[in-house]
């Protein structure tokens, strides 16, 4: 057998498709020709190593992106009923957690604002460094609040009225909670305007703004996770909300 013919047959021998007679001829040639033998051994090694290469798992987010696109394009129906129900329970849990958190904050906040004497009343001194720090924090929080409020409004506008939209009961709860927090912000702001040294009013304003920002952040995160169809992300936010 010539080396030219041998090299054609080597390909089939590596593939395992060479007939028995030609294989016997080729093997005889390989015993006599070191160059063809080396070629066969090398190609067989390449094939053997290739066969051990494992599949690579795609990252999880690829499926979420695909599902999100299909939903966005209206090419799939709502998620199957059990999942939809699960979402509804999730939202109810969020709403309950929010009501508890906001309600508890108001029980603490409002009496503190109205009853507390001002720092000036107690010490007769000017602003303490701690009070200045609180005032500066309040200014920063006001700015953050405005940004988040506008972000949440835009996101809400962008969501359709379908599966991605927040359920009406949840929207009502969120709006009610925001109203309560706004009331606390207005009242503590008014108390502070009346008595700029009232530390309790500043602290309450600070606290209410923080709670409002946190509520808006959670709402935005949840709307994003819902839009992406990320049930795990929703659960994570809920878990965080329940812990806070």
């Amino acid at each position, binding site marked *: 057998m010539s080396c030219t013919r041998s090299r054609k047959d080597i390909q089939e021998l*590596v593939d395992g498709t060479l007939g028995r007679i030609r294989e016997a001829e080729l093997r005889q040639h390989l015993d006599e020709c070191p160059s063809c033998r080396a070629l066969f051994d090398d190609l067989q090694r390449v094939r053997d190593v290739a066969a051990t290469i494992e599949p690579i798992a795609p990252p999880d987010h*690829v499926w979420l992106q*695909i599902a999100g696109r*299909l939903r966005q394009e209206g090419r*799939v*129906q709502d998620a*199957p009923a059990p999942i939809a129900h699960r979402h509804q329970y999730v939202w109810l849990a969020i709403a309950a957690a929010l009501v508890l958190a906001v309600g508890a904050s108001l029980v603490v906040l409002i009496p503190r604002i109205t009853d507390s004497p001002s720092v000036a009343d107690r010490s007769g001194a000017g602003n303490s460094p701690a009070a200045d720090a609180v005032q500066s924090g309040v200014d920063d929080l006001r700015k953050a609040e405005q940004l988040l409020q506008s972000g949440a409004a835009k996101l809400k506008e962008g969501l359709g009225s379908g599966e991605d939209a927040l359920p009406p009961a949840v929207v009502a709860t969120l709006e009610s909670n925001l109203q309560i927090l706004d009331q606390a912000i207005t009242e503590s702001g008014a108390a502070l305007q009346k008595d700029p040294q009232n530390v309790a009013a500043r602290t309450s304003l600070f606290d209410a703004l923080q709670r409002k920002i946190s509520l808006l952040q959670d709402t935005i995160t949840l709307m994003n996770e819902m839009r992406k169809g990320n049930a795990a992300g929703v659960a994570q936010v809920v878990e965080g909300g329940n812990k806070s």
Partner: protein
Amino acid sequence: MSGLTRGVSRQDDVALVERCRRGDLGAFEELYRQHAGRLYSVAFRMVGNAADAEDLLQEIFLSAHRKLETFRGDSALGTWLYRLAVNLCLDYLRSRTGRAIQMTDALDDEPGLFDASSKGLAERTVTKMDLERALTQLPEGCRAAFVLHDIEGLEHREIADVMGIAEGTSKSQVHKARLRLRALLSR
């Protein structure tokens, strides 16, 4: 057994596709879970990086969803998806290189590959990582055939079907890829 039809019957395929056609997202996720691993591996090894492979995988499944109506069950769902995936990968590579992918079936344009004096692998150790690295340096056409045959385990007739080439062309592309890999790994 063929590399494309293991474990799932044609009837199962048709039933699953039917549910997907009705807009059942859960069914489409099932289809995705069955095939995404192998299709992602092919895409990753054909384009050579994770970011492009992820984009392609997304495009493969969105395109599959759009084309579900055309799946008649004549071929296995795996074959149908592979065909879609390989074509999208080749389109992507064409657009990236700005030229057609060569699918010649001759090895005459491979000077030096059969040269008896060229260094072989000899006692050199070849790891999976070495091979994966060398793979990225192959011409796209023979890389695709090699990935499908030697890594994914498809038969030449399946590759011919998936890539729209003759069976003989698939054989020579795979052989060409092995020769090139040998040369690359010998350096």
